[in-house]
């Protein structure tokens, strides 16, 4: 039952991310602007390819596992690099320190991906651990979460004096929740691996990851492909944001 729940949750999370990722890329085709390209590609690489490859590698034979480990390393790292660039571009594009942070994140992730590739090819045994990459990924999610939730706070204050957009306020909150959940999920798995917990068979890890995945799927859709009834509900609640 638990395995079934985990499988369904992971499936829903991956499917939602692919749908939103493709939707954002379609938007980029129309607008030519970079944020939709960066975020759309990030979702497809990290959740559409990297995450499933990471899971599949743990159940595959040695040859296939090595290929999957290399694939997951490349896609997770490149996706995280895109998230660094997205956060800089959207929230801090005029700030020199943010440009430096994004640049450093991209360089570190590229270097780490290269090292992981070399490491995977030069050992007979498949190396599943990726602490360096996961740490950089957590930093990317942490920065994105911070900026998004900061903007949520700013939008709430605007609502109090009648200058805010309640749907926009809600969107910043949803993206902040999504990035925070991503951070929590990666942190949970990183700590579990560090403590030598078998994450494939541990009930707490599986349930925790599943719940996080379902929340992520939900907030992602509500943020970037909100159904009409949800928008109507948000627009009827301006006082809730103003309090």
């Amino acid at each position: 039952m638990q395995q079934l729940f985990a499988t369904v949750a992971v499936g829903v999370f991956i499917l939602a991310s692919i749908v939103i990722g493709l939707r954002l890329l379609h938007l980029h085709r129309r607008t030519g602007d970079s944020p939709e390209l960066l975020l759309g590609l990030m979702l497809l690489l990290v959740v559409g390819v990297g995450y499933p490859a990471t899971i599949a590698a743990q159940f595959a034979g040695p040859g296939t596992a090595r290929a999957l480990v290399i694939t997951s390393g490349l896609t997770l790292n490149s996706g995280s690099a895109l998230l660094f660039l997205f956060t800089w571009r959207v929230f801090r594009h005029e700030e020199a320190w943010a440009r430096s942070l994004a640049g450093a994140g991209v360089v570190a992730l590229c270097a780490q991906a290269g090292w992981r590739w070399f490491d995977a090819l030069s050992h007979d045994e498949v190396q599943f651990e990726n602490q360096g990459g996961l740490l950089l990924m957590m930093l990317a999610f942490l920065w994105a979460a911070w900026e998004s939730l900061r903007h949520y706070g700013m939008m709430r204050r605007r609502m109090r004096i009648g200058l805010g957009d309640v749907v926009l306020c809600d969107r910043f909150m949803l993206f902040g929740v999504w990035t925070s959940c991503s951070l929590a999920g990666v942190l949970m798995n990183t700590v579990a691996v560090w403590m030598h917990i078998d994450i494939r068979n541990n009930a707490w890890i599986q349930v925790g990851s599943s719940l996080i995945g379902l929340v992520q799927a939900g907030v992602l859709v509500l943020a970037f492909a909100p159904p009409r009834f949800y928008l109507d509900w948000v627009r009827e609640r301006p006082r809730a944001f103003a309090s």
Partner: protein
Amino acid sequence: MADSTAFEAACLCLENSSSLTKPEARGTIRIALKEAGFEAKTATPKVLAAVVQRLLPDELRSRRVADPDAVCRKIAVALEGMTSESASETAEAVFKRLGGE
């Protein structure tokens, strides 16, 4: 990144219309903007006008500025007719577009 033209105009007017020094005037308006969820770098004339009307009077009263309402009216007049400078895209504009609006 420099502060917006509207912010500079509001600060200058406040400094000239009250007993506040230049740093005090800038700090007061900056605090009012922050309370309203805005930043000095991107504050447009419309935003400044709303903040001056709704939040600045209380800030000036707490700083014992004489006749804060009159001071705020002068700042509002100084902001009238100012146009927003062309600014780079804000996070709000990006998120509005990403949500399909």
